């Protein structure tokens, strides 16, 4: 490995002789950002590109995210890759509901983000109609690089998120706006 890769940096904190103190939030955020287990909700073309992302050349494993958890309980981020038809929307929502907090959602590709070219009677015009979305990845389908960008964006969010955010009123209000208790 000749290239320098960016590995984890110690979180900000106070360092003294023989001690190092940092906030708990930061450590947890750091740990979470390095262990985001994806739940691939792959329905169509973008799913194939997600496979490429998982495959050898792009290797999602580098970020500690190679363990796909097909059980929503164990997953940290929901990767919605592909068209979500209106028939599928309730199922998507249910999967989201089944996920344990903290959970993040990435909409991969034009179809999941906005419906893309399928502005039709049967296609949901963006999954943000049914569940809150943290990151949108444009492209149809996005290249694996872009999917990685999206995942890195989620890592950024994870890293900086306060431990209490999920109990906060803002988050509750966001969920309430989607009729999720």
């Amino acid at each position, binding site marked *: 490995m000749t290239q320098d890769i960016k590995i984890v940096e110690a979180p900000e904190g106070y360092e003294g002789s023989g001690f190092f103190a940092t906030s708990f939030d930061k450590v947890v955020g750091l740990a979470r950002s390095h262990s985001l287990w994806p739940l691939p909700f792959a329905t169509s073309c973008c799913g194939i590109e997600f496979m490429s992302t998982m495959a*050898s050349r792009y*290797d999602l494993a580098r970020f500690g995210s190679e363990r796909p958890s097909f059980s929503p309980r164990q997953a940290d981020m929901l990767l919605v890759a592909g068209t979500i038809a209106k028939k599928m929307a309730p199922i998507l929502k249910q999967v989201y509901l089944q996920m344990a907090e903290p959970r993040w959602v990435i909409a991969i590709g*034009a179809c999941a983000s*906005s*419906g*893309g070219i399928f502005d039709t009677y049967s296609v949901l015009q963006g999954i943000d109609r049914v569940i809150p979305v943290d990151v949108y990845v444009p492209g149809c389908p996005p290249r694996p*690089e*872009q999917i990685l*960008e*999206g995942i890195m964006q989620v890592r950024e969010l994870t890293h900086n998120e306060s431990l209490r955010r999920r109990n906060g009123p803002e988050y509750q209000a966001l969920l309430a706006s989607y009729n999720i208790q």
Partner: protein
Amino acid sequence: MQLTNRSKQVSNKQMTFAERIYLPAIATGLGITIKHFFQKKVTIQYPEVKQFLGPVFRGRHVLKRDEQGRERCTACGLCAVACPAEAISMVAAEREKGEEKLYREEKYAAVYEINMLRCIFCGLCEEACPKQAIYLRHDEFVPVFTERDQVIWGKDLLAENMNNRYLRKAWTKEEAREQDLKGVEAEPRTQL
């Protein structure tokens, strides 16, 4: 049913004794995987190492300016018509006096918006443009969004930055072919 004389039976379901006792095949398999264990890895360390995406890759859009920095777009609307996703919209305006430095043609797009989440990067707009105005960059993606209201890109984001111009080997496919025939070295597919 035999329809042609080119058929070829390919599946043999009879197992030999060696195949029947599992172990030789398992050993072969283990040999293959351990060989790969010591092989060079093909992974590209993405954020640090970026791969060249090919000379015609269809990445993010750019509204080209000409040599003097004038916008080339004449708001003819062909790109919007050609767009299968109906992601492009524009408002045309007449060029006023004194704006010759800004716009090359007499008509220009006062508003030019692309919904980046609708766009499918098919390249039809680039192909439809008769004014060499819109291109899909081969070296850059559209970044990811975190909010839905960031996704409609106006001219501020689309128009080319004169300080950091978008360059490419050939601007049309005919040009590319000529260069190719002349043997102009293709860009290597390595680090960007």
